[in-house]
């Protein structure tokens, strides 16, 4: 066990920021927590979707009906059930139903290519999948038992006949599994416990949540922002408003937020910037705006502060491995020129350490950000060391802690807020999606028409980020569109480079590394790009 300690200043600032203990229901499963809300707030609105409004009683009934069918089909505690359902009340009921069986849900997206769907389901040991388009799904996934979320004799009356199932579910059981990009070419499964979700949404420092909270759910359910968007309101008696389409339109966003009286939203950094640029009024009625996923643009934050005032913006940070959010920073003013917006301090029941060479860093010293507390995943699914085991048990200045090394670099400010300083490895964020460059390269290198490749991320003239690939062809008939086409049967859309450039060779720098700058001058022939 590694022993991590530091000088007095370093120890004192860490113990100051890590006083985060808050009472929360750490002994209850999500099943118990939700069923308690369903009993207590039976007639309150749980879910809104287009013109449908479901009370807690109806949502619980719907979930119980699906759970009864899953139990009948043999689903047991500890199983993993795939969920491939469009954003709808049935999606929420499906997630609840899986939890009520004591199983873990694995949300997957019908837009993923078949190869990815199969790889993810296989890695999670999943044999049964709940869907809304089961015939199509059954054709694509012959190894899975497919199960419709809509029962033949649907209708609320039948669903209300089922009581809460009497399965035993504990706080240490796995609630769900999310997959993130893996640097060796295979996505990594991150299982999350029931307790970790309770830790995220109860006693929250980053936003006030209660019965009157109306929270927008607009993120893809296969990403962990959805954990907050769904369980934040539904474990408090609040309302979860489902964004009615898969693609967000600003006019529609404005209407949904206003019509449903949404009080709390999470927007990825890229989406936040787009709203601030194009339609800042869309968020006018929202009480708290959480945003995160990538480093923030100071100019957008400045514009947002001017528009929304100093008490409504909160920047949040956190890897999937620590259940959605790990730190928060209420944005009340802009940082001094030339410095980044801090990622902030740890949220409730979360500890953060900045560590360099087995030493706690004092303010101003750059190190790796480590996280600890009940938000941590128990570890990757069946994972052989991928980038070196990032989970470990350490002695953190006398306290035995299980920690997760994020791979993010940062430093503490004197006031205890942490500033992000980039990555230690080749992980990038593209429009809020976490992508390992190595996973894209792996699949490019499998392409028989590709001899050599280099993948990087660059900024578009309008300030967005895109993946760009440079390919040395192995055969004369290699074309960029065919290369992209072959990637698209392996990888989800957000991992496909938006441009593929063919080149005779990959230029090298004096030190023998691929010359990224020269390559990017091919991509941006008319001007320099920022790094």
């Amino acid at each position, binding site marked *: 066990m590694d022993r991590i300690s530091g000088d007095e200043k370093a120890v004192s600032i860490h113990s100051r920021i890590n006083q985060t203990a808050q009472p929360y229901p750490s002994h209850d499963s999500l099943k118990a927590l939700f069923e308690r809300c369903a009993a207590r707030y039976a007639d309150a609105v749980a879910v809104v979707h287009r013109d449908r409004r479901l009370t807690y009683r109806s949502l619980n009934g719907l979930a119980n009906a699906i759970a009864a069918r899953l139990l009948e089909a043999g689903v047991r505690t500890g199983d993993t059930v795939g969920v491939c359902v469009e954003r709808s009340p049935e999606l929420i009921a499906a997630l609840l139903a899986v939890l009520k069986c004591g199983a873990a849900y694995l949300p997957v997206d019908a837009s993923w290519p078949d190869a990815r769907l199969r790889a993810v389901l296989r890695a999670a040991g999943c044999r049964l999948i709940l869907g809304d388009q089961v015939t199509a799904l059954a054709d694509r996934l012959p190894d899975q038992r497919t199960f419709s979320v809509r029962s033949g004799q649907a209708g609320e009356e039948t669903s209300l006949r089922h009581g809460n199932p009497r399965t035993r579910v504990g706080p240490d059981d796995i609630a769900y599994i999310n997959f993130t990009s893996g640097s060796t070419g295979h996505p990594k499964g991150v299982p999350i416990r029931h307790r970790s979700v309770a830790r995220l949404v109860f006693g929250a420092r980053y936003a006030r949540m209660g019965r009157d909270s109306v929270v927008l759910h607009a993120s893809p359910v296969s990403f962990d922002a959805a954990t907050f968007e769904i369980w934040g309101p539904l474990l408090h008696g609040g309302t979860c408003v489902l964004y009615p389409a898969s693609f967000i339109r600003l006019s529609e966003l404005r209407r949904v937020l206003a019509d449903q009286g949404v009080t709390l939203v999470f927007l990825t950094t890229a*989406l936040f910037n787009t709203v601030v640029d194009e339609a800042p009024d869309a968020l006018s009625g929202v009480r708290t705006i959480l945003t995160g996923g990538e480093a923030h643009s100071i100019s957008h934050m400045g514009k947002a502060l001017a528009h929304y005032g100093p008490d409504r913006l909160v920047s949040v940070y956190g890897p999937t491995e620590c259940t959605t959010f790990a730190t928060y920073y209420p944005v009340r003013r802009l940082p001094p020129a030339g410095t980044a917006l801090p990622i902030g301090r740890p949220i409730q029941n979360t500890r953060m350490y900045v560590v360099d060479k087995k030493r706690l860093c004092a303010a101003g010293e750059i190190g790796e950000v480590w996280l600890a507390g009940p938000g941590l995943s128990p570890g990757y699914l069946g994972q052989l060391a991928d980038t070196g085991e990032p989970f470990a048990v350490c002695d953190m200045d006398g306290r035995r802690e299980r920690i997760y090394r994020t791979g993010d670099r940062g430093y503490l400010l004197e006031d205890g807020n942490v500033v992000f300083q980039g990555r230690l490895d080749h992980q990038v964020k593209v429009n809020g999606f976490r992508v390992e460059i190595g996973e894209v390269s792996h699949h490019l290198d499998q392409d028989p028409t590709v001899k050599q490749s280099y993948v990087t991320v660059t900024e578009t003239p309008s300030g967005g980020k895109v993946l760009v690939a440079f390919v040395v062809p192995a055969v004369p008939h290699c074309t960029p569109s065919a290369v992209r086409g072959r990637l698209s049967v392996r990888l989800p859309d957000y991992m496909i480079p938006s441009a593929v450039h063919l080149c005779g060779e990959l230029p090298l720098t004096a030190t023998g590394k691929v010359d990224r700058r020269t390559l990017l001058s091919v991509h941006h022939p008319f001007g320099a790009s920022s790094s």
Partner: protein
Amino acid sequence: MSDTADEQHVEAWLIGACQALGLNVTAAEDDFFESGGTSLSAMKLIARVEETFGEDALPPDDLFAESSLRALASAIERNRRRTAPLAGS
């Protein structure tokens, strides 16, 4: 104006709008996504189309179905005629 003239007007508007989004387009044959368009620039383009040609002038499904600027222009014209015959610039 004939439909063709209307569409040409919309095409010219689209070329300008895409250039303003930083895309490398010069002609109506150019494709929005092939020219560097992303889901975020799509969101911005749709917002600007709606501002100019009215809400629902370019539903995302139309943009993703066929994304040459020519196809987008005819989708905008088609939706505009269907949803709001009197709307427009």
